[in-house]
């Protein structure tokens, strides 16, 4: 067992109940040291509760929670080597930026001159030089976000927890902060665990993503793994846009679509199990019905609408048993069918994945 690196955070059988409500249901998860990990899920899925348990603001009902190998299940928040960036930043409104950033160090009785230099360093890290004397009411949303980051990072936590850190920012600023956060994480080398309901944010920033729904951890993997091979219908639907075609298992490499057609598709589930074939809009192709290239599977339907996105076009094709979206790059001279025309939507065998229904 030696030589195995100790995970920064290790959850084993973690369950949290509030009365009769199971907020988090038997979660097992390892987050490696230095990793940028995203907990992704819709609101109320238990991701924030999980984060709060790591922070020590909530205690698990069952299970073991280890931070760098030390059991921390019921350790109060002020005794844990982790810090949190709260959703609404929770800056202390009666203190200046500097006092906010210095708070954690002051509470740990760090010597005064060390506090001063570390606070300046942290303020520099988040590029807020010269704003030390401001109060939080005098800062913009993005600046508050940076103060919250500095206030947490100045303590040099072993794990930094971020609860929807970019949720309150507008789109442009959010995109800026995404890359900035990523760069910051690389610079300080601290394990970041962040919670978000925004799949794009998770895909952009995280090294690995854990997808949660209704208190359960459904899938853990790199952004590519989760996007390419979602484990079930929920994950497939939640991460990115997708077309899900009802099907059932015929053999371990063939499924039967709802229209009765058998197509190749790898799947380890028992014969007869209801599954869904996941076809991403950007992987679907579209041709006039008679011109589908050899080697591609296709279904034929009527073009219902075209949505112009500028850089791309999204075609909605209606079959009598399904509705498909096809996304095509906006290239000159491409196939441009009109609404109402018959079109064939096609795909190569590699483009699809079979997921549990």
């Amino acid at each position: 067992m030696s030589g195995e690196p100790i995970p920064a955070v290790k959850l084993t059988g973690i369950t949290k109940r509030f009365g009769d409500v199971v907020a988090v249901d038997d979660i097992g998860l390892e987050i490696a040291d230095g990793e940028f990990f995203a907990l992704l899920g819709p609101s109320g899925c238990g991701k924030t509760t999980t984060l709060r348990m790591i922070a020590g603001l909530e205690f698990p009902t069952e299970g073991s929670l280890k931070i760098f190998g030390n059991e921390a299940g019921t350790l109060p928040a002020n005794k844990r080597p982790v810090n949190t960036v709260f959703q609404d930043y929770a800056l202390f409104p009666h203190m200046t930026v500097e006092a906010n950033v210095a708070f954690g160090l002051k509470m740990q009785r760090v010597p005064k001159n060390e506090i001063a230099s570390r606070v300046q360093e942290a303020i520099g890290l988040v590029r807020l030089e010269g704003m030390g004397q401001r109060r939080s009411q005098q800062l913009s949303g993005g600046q508050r976000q940076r103060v919250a980051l500095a206030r947490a990072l100045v303590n040099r936590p072993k794990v930094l927890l971020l609860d929807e850190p970019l949720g309150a920012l507008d789109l442009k600023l959010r995109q800026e902060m995404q890359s900035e956060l990523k760069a910051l994480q690389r610079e300080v080398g601290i394990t970041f665990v962040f919670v978000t309901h925004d799949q794009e944010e998770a895909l952009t920033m995280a090294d690995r993503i854990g997808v949660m729904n209704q208190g359960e951890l459904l899938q853990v993997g790199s952004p590519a793994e989760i996007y390419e091979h979602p484990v079930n219908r929920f994950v497939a639907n939640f991460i990115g846009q997708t077309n899900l075609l009802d099907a059932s298992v015929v053999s371990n490499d063939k499924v039967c679509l709802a229209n009765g057609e058998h197509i190749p598709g790898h799947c380890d589930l028992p014969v007869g199990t209801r599954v869904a074939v996941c076809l991403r809009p950007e992987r679907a192709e579209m041709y006039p019905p008679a011109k589908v290239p050899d080697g591609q599977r296709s279904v034929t339907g009527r073009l219902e609408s075209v949505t112009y996105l500028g850089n791309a076009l999204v075609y909605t094709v209606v079959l009598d048993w399904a509705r498909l979206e096809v996304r095509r790059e906006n290239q000159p001279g491409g196939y441009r069918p009109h609404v109402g025309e018959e079109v064939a939507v096609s795909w190569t065998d590699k483009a699809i994945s079979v997921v549990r229904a």
Partner: protein
Amino acid sequence: MSSTVQPRGTTKIALAAHSWLVYLFFFAPILVLIVFSFSDDNNVGRWGGFTLEWYQDFVENTQLQNAVWVSIRVAVLSTVISVVLGTLAALALERFKFRGRKVFDALLYLPIIIPDVTMAVMMLLFFSEFFDLLETWFGLDWQKGLSSITISHIAFNISFVSVVVRARLAGMSEVLEEAALDLYASRWKTFRYVTFPQILPGVAAGALLALTLSLDDVVITQFSSGPGATTLPVFVFGLIRRGVTPLINATSVLMLAASVILVALSLAFQQFSGRPSLRTARQAISAKPTTNTQSKEGIPQ
């Protein structure tokens, strides 16, 4: 174009007249009171020329001064104690879940709801029973006086303080306390550095309210005061029964002056604490997020 609609013609005159009437309604009695405190006539309502006799009287009247001192001591003591207890009660109700919380919550409002007279009779009964018990069990002879007045004032002030502080606490996000905890603060330090500074305006308002209520109270005090000590309002009440002289006016003017000073002080306190000054606010608005310190002296706007 101005953003507000300015009244014109008769509307303007009517509105102005209305405001003056309201001011008159508020301040005419006070003016009359002040003017007649300088009247050289034993009858309160008759002008008998200017004199400072009544103020002289006030200075010489030891009974009256005694009452003033009792009032002040009761007010300060009951305010301090009820602010501490009321704030603790507010914290308990707003931040913790415990058995009997709802009952406690409802009971805490009682002194605000029940009539003063009921409260006063309750106090009277309580003190007479309590002092009897003290006497029979411990042989202590305790009379109603300063301490019983103070206790009865604390009894109703706790409710008022806790209501005011709770309102402030309810408006303060619990996340701030979690943030402090997350930043290694103990529960006590969280209170000391985060919760308390946040609820301070509420605590100050509660204290001011308690002070005023204590200084004002007649009914409850009357029932819980003894021969040894009485407060100013109760004493003034007694004066009226014995025949009124402008001494009452003089006393009232002095009380009025004291309360005006108190209010002015509290306003000044609110101005100086909590809110960032106008100057720093203006700086924040004029400096764009990306500009740094050097550019502050730069381009005039």
